[in-house]
């Protein structure tokens, strides 16, 4: 048994074996190659799984950051609106000489209304929307991780089947050897 470029080769010339034995060796070689390929697949799938999981977790952390940003921006703008409203309400109305109230400036109520209207929009633009994007990225990465697990399972199946076939081929070879031995014993007995 020799190893060439990482894959194992059994008895290249099949020395001392009949046709069936050589065929069994061929099957062994073939399954060994498959086993090696499956092992490489497993390694690749494992690396893909790690990368996809890392990406998913990173996207989730980004989503958390975006939620926090959105909440703080929306809250800050709403607080500004509330501050303007309170200031406007507490501001004593101007009265003219006749004791009549003079029309108040429109700036404060308009600014408060604008801030109130903007708060949700800003919250969505800077918080909810990027967070949803990150959630989608996390979902995508999660699916990739799941696919990597499936790939790993497939590689395991291939590896298991290759081993089963190798075992069968080995059993066959063993049976061949036993037959040969019994034949030789019979020949010895015949000479005796």
């Amino acid at each position, binding site marked *: 048994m020799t190893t060439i470029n990482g894959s194992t080769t059994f008895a290249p010339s099949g020395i001392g074996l009949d046709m069936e034995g050589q065929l069994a060796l061929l099957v062994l070689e073939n399954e060994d190659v498959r086993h090696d390929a499956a092992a490489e697949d497993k390694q690749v799938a494992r690396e893909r799984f790690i990368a996809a999981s890392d990406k998913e977790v990173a996207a989730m952390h980004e989503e958390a950051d975006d939620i926090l940003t959105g*909440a703080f921006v929306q*809250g800050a703008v709403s607080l500004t609106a509330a501050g303007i409203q309170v200031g406007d309400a507490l501001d004593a109305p101007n009265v003219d000489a006749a004791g009549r109230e003079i029309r108040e400036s429109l700036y404060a*109520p308009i600014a408060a*209304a604008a801030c109130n209207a903007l708060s949700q929009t800003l919250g969505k633009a800077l*918080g909810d929307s990027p967070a949803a994007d990150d959630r989608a990225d996390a979902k995508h990465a999660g699916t990739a991780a799941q696919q990597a697990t499936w790939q790993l399972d497939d590689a395991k199946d291939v590896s298991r089947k290759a081993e089963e076939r190798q075992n069968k081929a080995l059993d066959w070879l063993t049976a061949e050897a036993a037959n040969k031995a019994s034949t030789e014993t019979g020949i010895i007995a015949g000479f005796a």
Partner: protein
Amino acid sequence: MTTSIQASASRSPLLTPVSAGRCGASPEARLLALIVQNQLVQGESAKTSVNLSQEQLKQIREEVRQALEAAREANEDSGFWGDIGDVLGGDIATLGEVVMVAAASVVTGGAAALVLGAIAVACTLSSKYADELGIPKDVAIGLGIAAAVTSVLSGNIAGGGDVAALAGATKGAVSVGKGAAEVTSLVKIAREVKFCAGVVSAVATGAGAGAHMVEGYYASDAVDHNADAHAAQAREKLESMDIDAAVDLLGRALDRQLAAMAQAGQTLEANQQSKQLIIHSYQGIA
């Protein structure tokens, strides 16, 4: 991990080299013994690996449990603060606005302000309870803006010179009768109510905004903990894969060990039979 495996393997009494010394066995038997020894080493490695992975798996499961627990608590806190924010910034602030608009209508006594106030109230309520009423989000935002605009207009009319008109009317009414004085005091009360409602509404909006900020903080915290739990679960999966691989290795090692031992037994038996046959044949010749 490798060090532990080597240490464990070297301690095993089963792993004494069999091929070094001459033990009188045939080359085939020694080869088989080598195979058995090799499989034993692999088996020991696999066992050690499984044991170590099991310990790590326990730790990781504990991490996952803690992260999920923290995420659940953060979600509960987020929900609590969200409810507070909804009550303050939603119900109380809306009620304040409604009272403020109603008071402004009383102060002005004008039909325009009343109509605007009614529109403002309707828009505010529709916007705040859009979900319950089944109003689409975009429409709700539009209603909120309309509510803000109409509220500003009606409030402005309330604070404006129209009061003077009402005051003039009431002043004229004083000369007519006693009821006019009551109207004037009603306007004063309405003005006070409007002021208080405006302050309460603004403060409630601010407090609601603060509560929603805290809600956002806890929501973000929950997602962070969920991400930690996901990371730990991924590591758990990797450890499980390692354990599966080690168990597979152990199973294969045992299978090969048994097969090699069976093969050794068969070979010895065949040798024995051959020797006996040869002895018998020599006896026959003799």
